């Protein structure tokens, strides 16, 4: 009895193998008009891109489009593995600062012909430069982002503090003074101990969120403001200026003064555990959906000498090893056109765009009050992230590890120097 069972099981396994192999073999036949997309799991992206694909298929029924999505924090690794194979995904979506990095490695196809020179001024300042490398364009800028400070209106009112208006952001010292008062008032009047500031992930991390704090301590055009050399390979003299170090020290003081938490506090702002919160447009929508009873507002990011916020969102790019370059280019052109944008917005909701002219033609997509606020912030304070062909390295070392170490209390000067050296060594051997 036992033996027959074993044999049956083995036969079952083998037949399943054969069946699945056969099933796959059929769909693996190379069709000239088949496009494969790779997107990260980011709210709205998968559905939005699917909507764009559906709209495209209606115009081009002979094209089959498959979309593959992977967990966000594994996306970069998956991109590398995918590009190492001989069967690449034709189109990928990735943040604009990463583009020059991937272009440097030759992983992307130049798409200058998709954006004629006459159209380039239609994009927000710096968007085209961010996706260019050595004079060629390697991605179609799509979404933009901007950061701002959310504040808890109830607590602010308790302390009698009025938030900064959109056109006059606070300085960081003003912020610290005011928020300390807010925290005291909250403690006295509600008994709650609240944080001064929380981030999307605590402790704070990411070049997008935190480097503006450092850059703002420089005058526009200064080394501190630029944060990196023009060729994007040197940080000495840019990230270690006295102003930059001063700003890093301020950032560390947020944690030593217990203004910011050193460990994750999910939904800190939504559950009324923090006075201010560094977020972006989708944070506004999340708050409205998940915490409808919370009273909050938005004010621009505080600064030291020059106010700024980082920009750049996801873009469409084409793999250099694609076997369907013409079809891929056609799709990307569609995705970036009015029809593509509409398809995306209809499903995922409107967002900030790199293309500024779309808003003029379709104002109905820009009625959301929060979107208007962030649009203003984007236009007034928006600054592209440090452009470097080693952006993945830069973000990992200077955007993540550096700030995380500072939050844990390491010596500021030493840590900054170590990280700069690490970046420059790795960048040189790229």
């Amino acid at each position, binding site marked *: 009895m*036992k*033996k027959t069972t*074993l044999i049956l*099981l*083995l036969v*079952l*396994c083998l037949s*399943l*193998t054969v069946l*699945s*192999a056969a099933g*796959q073999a059929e769909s*693996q036949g190379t069709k000239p008009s088949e496009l*494969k997309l790779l997107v*990260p*799991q*980011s*709210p709205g992206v998968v559905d939005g891109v699917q909507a764009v694909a559906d709209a495209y298929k209606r115009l081009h029924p002979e094209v089959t489009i*498959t*979309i*593959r*999505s*992977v*967990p*966000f*924090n*594994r996306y970069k690794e*998956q991109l590398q*593995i995918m590009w*190492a*194979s*001989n*069967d690449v*995904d034709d189109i990928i979506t990735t943040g604009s600062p990463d583009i020059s990095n991937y272009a440097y490695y030759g992983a992307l196809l130049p798409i200058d012909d998709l954006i004629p020179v006459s159209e380039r001024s239609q994009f927000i300042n710096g968007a085209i430069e961010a996706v260019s490398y050595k004079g060629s364009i390697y991605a179609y800028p799509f979404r933009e982002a901007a950061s701002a400070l959310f504040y808890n209106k109830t607590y602010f009112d308790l302390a009698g503090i009025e938030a900064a208006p959109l056109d006059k952001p606070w300085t960081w010292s003003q912020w610290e003074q005011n928020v300390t008062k807010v925290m005291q008032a909250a403690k006295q009047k509600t008994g709650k101990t609240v944080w001064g500031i929380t981030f*999307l992930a605590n402790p704070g991390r990411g070049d997008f969120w935190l480097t503006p704090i450092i850059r703002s301590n420089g005058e526009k055009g200064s080394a501190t403001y630029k944060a990196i050399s023009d060729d994007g390979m040197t940080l000495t003299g840019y990230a270690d200026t006295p102003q930059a170090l001063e700003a890093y020290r301020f950032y560390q003081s947020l944690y030593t003064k217990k203004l910011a938490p050193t460990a994750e*506090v*999910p*939904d800190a702002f*939504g*559950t009324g555990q923090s006075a201010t919160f560094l977020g972006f447009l*989708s*944070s506004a929508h*999340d708050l409205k959906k*998940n*915490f409808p*009873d919370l009273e909050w507002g938005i004010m621009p990011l505080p600064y030291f000498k020059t106010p700024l916020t980082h920009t750049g969102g996801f873009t469409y790019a084409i793999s250099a090893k694609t076997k369907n370059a013409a079809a891929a280019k056609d799709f990307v052109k569609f995705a970036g056109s009015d029809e593509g944008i509409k398809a995306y917005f209809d499903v995922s909701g409107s967002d900030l765009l790199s293309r500024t002219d779309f808003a003029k033609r379709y104002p109905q997509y820009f009625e959301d009050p929060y979107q208007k606020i962030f649009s203003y912030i984007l236009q007034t304070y928006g600054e592209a992230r440090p452009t470097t062909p080693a952006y993945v390295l830069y973000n990992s070392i200077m955007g993540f590890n550096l700030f995380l170490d500072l939050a844990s209390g390491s010596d500021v000067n030493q840590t900054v120097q170590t990280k700069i050296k690490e970046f420059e060594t790795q960048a040189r051997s790229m």
Partner: protein
Amino acid sequence: MKPLKKTLVVLSLALLAGVFLLPYLWMLGSAFKSRSELFSYVLPVSWKTFIPVKPTLDNFTTLLFELGFTRTILNTLGLSAITVLGSVLLCSMAAFALSLLDFPGRRLAFFVIMFTMMVPFEARMLPTFLVVQDIGLSNTFTALYLPWLADAFLIFLFSNHFAEIPFDLYHAAVIDGCPHTRIYSKIMLPNITPALVSGALIKFFFAWDSYVWPLIILRNNRFQVLGVAIANLFTDQSIAWELIFSSALLSTVPVVIIFILLQRYYIAGMTSGGIKE
């Protein structure tokens, strides 16, 4: 004296159980909480930490109907079943040959197999992917479980247990006329049931929880595994904690059920220890 000892025993057992159960109690209550309530009652600890004030099934409906978790769970069950059956069978057969037979090259074969345990998966996932690609199995279900069938840990485990079987048993069977090719199923298998069950459990959970390899191999989203589906809940902009707690529940319950069904193997093993003739 007796009642005191009994109370101490009960207390320490309760503490032990508590250490293992505490996260699950929190998870259980949280799975039924809406997002707004989820982290509102953690500090200070009260009954509200563990029991939802406004219980909701929304998390589960989102997972099962909007995010396709039903299909995912079934897929992963299928994958785990095939992995377990295939690897337990193949590895125990190999362990038998390596432990109770001798032939030229045996030591080398054993060493090679043990050696493969020493290299971490992260280091060889890319080369394995390239090999799979070169064979032409990229993006197939087969490529998913085939590399998992030959498992050095399992072979090591089974070898250990085969070593405990007295050789006389084997010898007697051969003298009785049993051919060597039938020895495995007739004599060996019944005697290492506890090890088989342990091995099956390891392999099952490994396949059940896997997500890095399926992520690399499966190039379309039609066949989704549980590990990837849960990992997808951690995005750049938000972590869907309410869904994570409920997905934890969903992913643990089927396994616990299977486990409870397997209990009888343990009871049988415990009451009749020793060698089976």
